[in-house]
């Protein structure tokens, strides 16, 4: 396997974060877009020697219309189905081209930015294939918990009890979304023995997110990061609250930051006193319809998840 000559150093603080932007101003994402913030931080952490693969999703449609490409680094569209396989092909190409002397640059960071649907639903097969084959790539799932660009339809990572335009609450289905979301990070880690690094991160903790990206890129082989990216359009909150909602997700246990590095699991940002989930649910219009028993159910689910984390 071709080696990188450059190791990405950890970023100590906001003050030490690189000023250079790789995901630049001038894109069509929502005001207050969580995925766009994640994209910017990830690109910043990865730096210049990077290739992004963008499977169809918000970060393709909202970013690139009208021939926009707000990346200073190479970017390639993939179908929503095949972010994992296109990245595999790029990685394979660089391996062989460097071996054959057809490319004399440094081995690039190859990053797939897939949405929750492009990771856990329609894109799962290609990503799982890439992880199984241990291509030297980083797959990031920017999880805004729905198909947002098409008008907020439920994905398999939409939380229980969300109202989406495919899971509207009504007399027969008062809770809206009836199913519990897939645990994609666990699926990737426990289902792919060659994957040595997976992490969950949040836009509420930008330095942690950037350092996880750097750690993942420094690994040889496949790595996976699942980033919760609050979505003002889909979750129905004011665009100024994107980071606040993301933080509340951690404080209530609705989202847990952790990493598994070569088998060692570390929990991050564990709240000293966990807030009730209701506090989080109240901030978002998608949960407006929930009855006390639904909230109770979610609280139990979260309690269980936190207990086993």
């Amino acid at each position, binding site marked *: 396997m071709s080696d990188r000559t450059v190791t990405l150093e950890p970023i100590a603080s906001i003050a030490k974060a690189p000023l250079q932007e790789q995901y630049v101003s001038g894109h069509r994402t929502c005001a207050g877009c969580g995925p766009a913030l994640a994209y910017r931080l990830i690109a910043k952490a990865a730096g210049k020697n990077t290739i992004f693969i963008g499977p169809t999703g918000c970060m393709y449609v909202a970013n690139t219309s009208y021939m926009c490409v707000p990346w200073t680094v190479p970017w390639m569209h993939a179908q929503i189905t095949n972010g994992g396989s296109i990245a595999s092909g790029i990685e394979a190409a660089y391996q062989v081209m460097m071996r054959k002397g057809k490319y004399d640059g440094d081995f690039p960071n190859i990053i797939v930015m897939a949405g929750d649907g492009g990771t856990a639903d329609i894109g799962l097969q290609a990503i799982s294939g890439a992880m199984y084959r241990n291509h030297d790539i980083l797959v990031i799932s920017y999880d805004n918990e729905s198909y947002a660009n098409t008008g907020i339809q439920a994905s398999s990572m939409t939380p229980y009890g969300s109202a989406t335009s495919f899971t509207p609450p009504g007399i027969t289905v008062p809770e809206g979304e009836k199913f519990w979301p897939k645990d994609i990070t666990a699926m990737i880690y426990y289902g792919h023995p060659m994957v040595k690094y997976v992490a969950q991160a949040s836009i509420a903790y930008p330095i942690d997110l950037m350092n996880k990206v750097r750690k993942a890129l420094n690994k040889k082989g496949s790595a996976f990061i699942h980033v919760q990216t609050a979505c003002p359009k889909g979750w*129905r909150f004011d665009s100024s609250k994107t980071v606040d909602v993301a933080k509340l997700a951690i404080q209530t246990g609705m989202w847990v930051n952790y990493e598994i590095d070569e088998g060692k699991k570390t929990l991050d940002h564990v709240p000293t006193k966990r807030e009730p989930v209701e506090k989080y649910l109240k901030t978002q219009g998608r949960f407006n319809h929930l009855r006390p028993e639904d909230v109770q159910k979610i609280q139990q689910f979260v309690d269980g998840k936190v207990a086993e984390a």
Partner: protein
Amino acid sequence: MADSKTTSQVKEVTIWASGVIQDAEARDTANCIAAAASKEGKHVQAFDNYIDLPDRVNVPVRKYARISSEEIQEKYLYENEHPNMVVVVEPTLIKGFNILRGMLKGGMLVVNTGKEPEELLKFLPNKELLAAVATIDASKVAEALVDDFMDIEGAAAGVLGRGIGAALAGAVAKVSGYFGLESLKEVVQNTDAAEKGFNNVKIKIL
């Protein structure tokens, strides 16, 4: 050959709004206008701008209503090419965008704001296109904002005129005369807002 631009009898109403937050309201405004004119036997269309999709928070979105005494021949257009009337749900948009694009001389502008019509003129570099500018504080008279997840692009419209759409359509009725207040009241739920929109609109003839 006939020129489709000059032979068209269609009155075009373009509604500008801030994405996501006012998306449903703007669509509702277009639907109210079309439904009211239809009550009077007019040929109508109401549709979303498709080109600017996906809808995003704060992005300018456009909705269109088209009213004609004769059958509308070119039904499949993406945009109103020459709006006779422009309605602005989020007043700030007049600063950032040429909301009068395509307008021929003699057009009308209705803005959802508590400000006086005169105050807006400084933000309109092409104000010479306008025959009238009007303001209505629709957000104030209607109070409620429609916030319905199912009211998104492509889905069938539900109840019309629950929120500020009724008030804005009322103002449009007064300013344009394309349809009467009574017809509007027949199609909207919030008849009070429609009436207030009609009565409270401040018009400045230019």
